[in-house]
């Protein structure tokens, strides 16, 4: 009955999010993986290895990293957001003393890396 009444009065816009956003998200994900032929599991593995390499040079906040593939205008880009806490000691030690003092603690920065992949 309630459904009938709500049908009569027309659905309130924005009350319940429609399913089209789900469709769009699924589609975007599908197209990226269709194009690069990289499974989500492989992407996870790549992300783990990337983080391992980056962690050799800078101390990063692993809980807040994001590595994903994005697509615009038929081009695939690898987009990563990896917050850097500080440069690791080992690297700093090899720098001149005064520079080392200044760079020992760096403000957290976000590394955004885009690697274009032609369609």
């Amino acid at each position, binding site marked *: 009955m309630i459904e009938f009444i709500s049908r009569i009065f027309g659905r309130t816009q924005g009350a319940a*999010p429609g399913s089209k956003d789900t469709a769009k998200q699924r589609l975007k994900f599908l197209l990226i993986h269709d194009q690069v032929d990289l499974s989500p599991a492989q992407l996870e593995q790549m992300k783990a290895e990337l983080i391992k390499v980056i962690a050799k040079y800078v101390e990063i906040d692993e809980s807040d990293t994001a590595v994903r593939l994005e697509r615009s205008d038929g081009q695939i880009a690898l987009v990563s957001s990896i917050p850097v806490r500080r440069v690791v000691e080992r690297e700093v030690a090899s720098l001149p003393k005064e520079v080392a003092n200044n760079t020992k603690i760096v403000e957290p920065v976000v590394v955004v890396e885009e690697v274009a992949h032609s369609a």
Partner: protein
Amino acid sequence: MAECIVVTSGKGGVGKTTTTANLGMALALNGSKVAVVDADIGLRNLDVILGLENRIVYDLVHVIEGECRLKQALIRDKRVENLFLLPAAQTRDKNAVTPAQMRELVNQIKAEGYDYVIVDCPAGIEQGFKNAVAGADKAIIVTTPEVSAIRDADRIIGMVEAAELPEPQLIINRYRPRMVASGDMMNKEDILEILSIPLLGIVPDHEEIIISANRGAPVVLDEKSLVGEAYRRIGRRLKGEPDVPMLEFPVNTGFWSTLKKLMGLSAREVA
């Protein structure tokens, strides 16, 4: 200068044949000489949609194999001047024809003084697709606002580009303005953002399409039909007429219109 346009989609059942029939008719009604070619060998249907199935004597494979002349196989539509159908063979398969033969066939039709040759491509990405695009100068991609259809359209766009055709144009078929308004169907912008090719037109979903297929009389013949108007405008855009506005589909979700719809009083409104 004659132009060959292939209508393709990848996925089956999105309305390629209906689009080909209506577009061919729209162009012919607008004064062009048009041949619509059914390239779906083994599963022909363009003849049925056009209501010309009882007049077939020869088909595309007969022409290619030299069993008849092209003019004998082209069926003249009696309702619309300058519209002709070249039907597909029903008892052969897609391997009966090669891309080189299709190219030759299209050139032969062009040489007969046609302005447009519109090829209805079979679903899929194999031999049938390769044959259908072989003679084409450009492609029209038909899709519906669904995940599966858009995914396949994306794949086909890549294949059209690989076939060295210019950037294809998009027709969004089976558009349901009410569902778009309630957020349950991807809208024009969503689809264009994903496929990023130019939009040629939007065709609303409507019962009229099923009725016209039942009768073998494409909806573009009905001057009062909104769906027919969508095809007529697509035809005008194809002919290069500038600034043909996109059809608007106002959705009235107010009390009275919803009540009327529930009581079946506004049958002509699109879904």
